[in-house]
């Protein structure tokens, strides 16, 4: 489940029907999870809703997470649904401070899906599992009638072992902590938007889908005790993820706009379509809040590992404005950045 504050006990979800916005990862998703699922289903009402849940089995603590992948088109520059399905779950565990130990997968296949496509996706999953070093130990398959699914949906569930000396909790975040971002944002969301061919726009751009576990392990080795919080800014983007953090810690997240790495192609598409790159989905990046005395160590560690070269400190935690994300531009103007409301829709007129 996405979203991470302590949970209300009564059902408060009043929306009359489910709309696409409820799955977009922004405010509506949060309302659904916190207002309906959590009060009725979430076991520990005092625990924050994070990217994974923690289970005590005997003396061992195990982290568990699950994620469904519904993406159109199935393949896109830089990846496919198979890559996403494995990386997404490995990454959710990694940003929870755990190494994935095993995974199961469920396939919902649409009648008429060519076997060649299915095989291609299964091979993509196998490669991604191999890279992450995670065994797949079970699964399930269902087939639905033609027209009932976009070719295929995949759900993966993973369990992970906590990394030693890592204690992540949004409530441990303090004013003065640094906000670290692993690399350029918006690549995945804009790649998918362009791959749908609904826009007369082309760009030399790839999804950033990848396993971030090696990056996080390296950072943890150098700065483990200083890492207070981590999250991968998938749906809803960096803005939504950091707003959740701001709310959970009751503090302000202040970002320097010029420090936020955004590729020219992503910026261009966002400028044209009236989208905010901070709201665009990522599949291979993570955010971390690091105690100031560990910030340089964390950054240096990432710079020394392949794929971590673009990591950067993008801002810091402050006391005011509480519960908000504020972005300051190079020329001095500042703005509040809210969670994504509904789906990110392009502005034309």
């Amino acid at each position, binding site marked *: 489940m996405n979203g991470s504050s302590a949970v209300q006990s009564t059902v408060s979800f009043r929306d009359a029907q489910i709309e696409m916005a409820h799955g977009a990862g922004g*405010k509506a998703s949060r309302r659904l999870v916190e207002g309906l699922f959590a009060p009725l289903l979430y076991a520990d009402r005092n625990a924050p809703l994070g990217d994974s849940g923690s289970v005590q089995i005997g003396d061992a603590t195990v982290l568990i997470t699950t994620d469904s992948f519904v993406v159109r088109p199935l393949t896109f520059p830089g990846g496919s649904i198979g890559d996403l399905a494995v990386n997404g779950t490995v990454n959710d565990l990694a940003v929870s401070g755990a190494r994935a130990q095993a995974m199961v997968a469920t396939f919902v296949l649409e009648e008429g899906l060519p076997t060649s496509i299915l095989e291609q996706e299964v091979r993509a999953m196998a490669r991604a599992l191999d890279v992450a070093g995670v065994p797949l130990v079970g699964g399930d398959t269902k087939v639905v009638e033609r027209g009932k699914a976009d070719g295929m949906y995949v759900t993966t569930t993973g369990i992970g072992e906590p990394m030693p000396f890592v204690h992540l909790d949004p409530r441990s975040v303090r004013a003065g902590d640094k906000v670290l971002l692993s690399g350029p944002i918006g690549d995945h969301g804009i790649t998918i938007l362009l791959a749908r061919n*609904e826009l007369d726009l082309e760009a030399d751009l790839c999804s950033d889908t990848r396993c971030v576990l090696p990056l996080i392990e390296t950072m943890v080795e150098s700065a483990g005790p200083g890492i207070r919080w981590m999250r991968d800014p998938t749906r809803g983007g960096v803005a939504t993820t950091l707003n959740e953090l701001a709310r959970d810690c009751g503090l302000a997240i202040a970002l320097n706009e010029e420090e936020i790495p955004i590729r020219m192609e992503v910026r261009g598409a966002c400028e044209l379509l009236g989208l905010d790159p901070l709201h665009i989905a990522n599949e291979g990046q993570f955010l971390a809040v690091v105690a100031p005395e560990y910030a340089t160590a964390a950054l240096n560690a990432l710079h020394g590992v392949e794929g971590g070269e673009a990591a950067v400190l993008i801002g810091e935690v402050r006391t005011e404005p509480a519960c908000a994300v504020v972005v*300051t531009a190079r020329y*001095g103007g500042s703005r509040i950045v809210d969670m994504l409301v509904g789906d990110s829709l*392009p502005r034309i*007129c």
Partner: protein
Amino acid sequence: MQYVDEFRDPELIRKASDEIHRLADAGRHYRIMEVCGGHTHAIYRFGLKDLLPENIDLIHGPGCPVCVLPMGRIDDGLAVAKGEGMIFAAFGDMMRVPGTSGSPLEHKAKGTDVRIVYSPADALQLARKNPEKHVMFFAIGFETTAPSTALTLMRAKSEGIGNFSVFCNHVTIVPAIRAILDSPDMRLDGFIGPGHVSTVIGCRPYEWIARNERKPVVTSGFEPLDLLQSIVMLLRQLHAGEARVENQYKRVVAWEGNTAALKVMAQVFQLRPYFEWRGLGFISQSALKIREEFAEWDAEQRFPIPGTRVTDPKAAQCGEVLKGVLKPSQCKLFGKECTPEHPIGALMVSTEGSCAAYYSYEHRKSTAMVASIASVA
């Protein structure tokens, strides 16, 4: 990025900001209206108020086409769209705008075939691809988007595409400015003229504002430096006691506008005698109607239209905010009943609406609202 970075250059922006501080007479309060919703959005998006002296108030004008569209028109469009075999096509801007029975997106969830398009030409292409369906393009926008709707109608006619129509809600900016100026509680010193609209209509249509109302107008671009420079130009005129129309956005806007686009619009559209504006009421000759020659592609002539009239809730003070009498946060419903997720008033529905822009980018800078926000609606 060319045409972007140079207009966000910190050094140049600092100079412009310094110049505004130098020019602004400390003993005077300036009320400048930016007409265009794109400007409103940019002012908040770029945090420009941080760079202005306190005695310059930017009043947000009527130029957000989504905000000024009456709910009844949305109801009418969605009522037609419910018909068998219909596809309702509109810009993304329209998708969350509520009618009385919900927004296009909510109707989509209930089964109406709603599609987001990026241009009217895309909607026409949808009609070509779906010959068994009827595609109705729900057209919105000022003179900025009207020419592309006009061209699309001409193409539909020349190609004889029978399964396509336009539900026309195009409006014109000048009558709305006139309505604002005619309002008795309005005190404005000058206007930041619309940028995109002016690429089509040019700067000449604003000359009466300078001549008759003695208020300066500066047509402006949308980048931080554009807007600051426009304010400098306005202050210089005010300082000199002048009232002229000036063009800051010369890299895009020609004084005479885009004559080819104007010609196409004149061929396809005529003025409606009057049209309702949300928050402003009925304004004469303020909207476009599809000409008789294109009746076959005019959804209002082709389908029975309920002609729904909806009055906004009395508690929503959109009209006052629209005219700059109230600031968004001074409306009784702002941030409480009325939020971008559940807009009650017109100005909260689009990110270009002043209330939505203020809500998204500005008001939490003051901490008073924090409590109500933190407990997500």
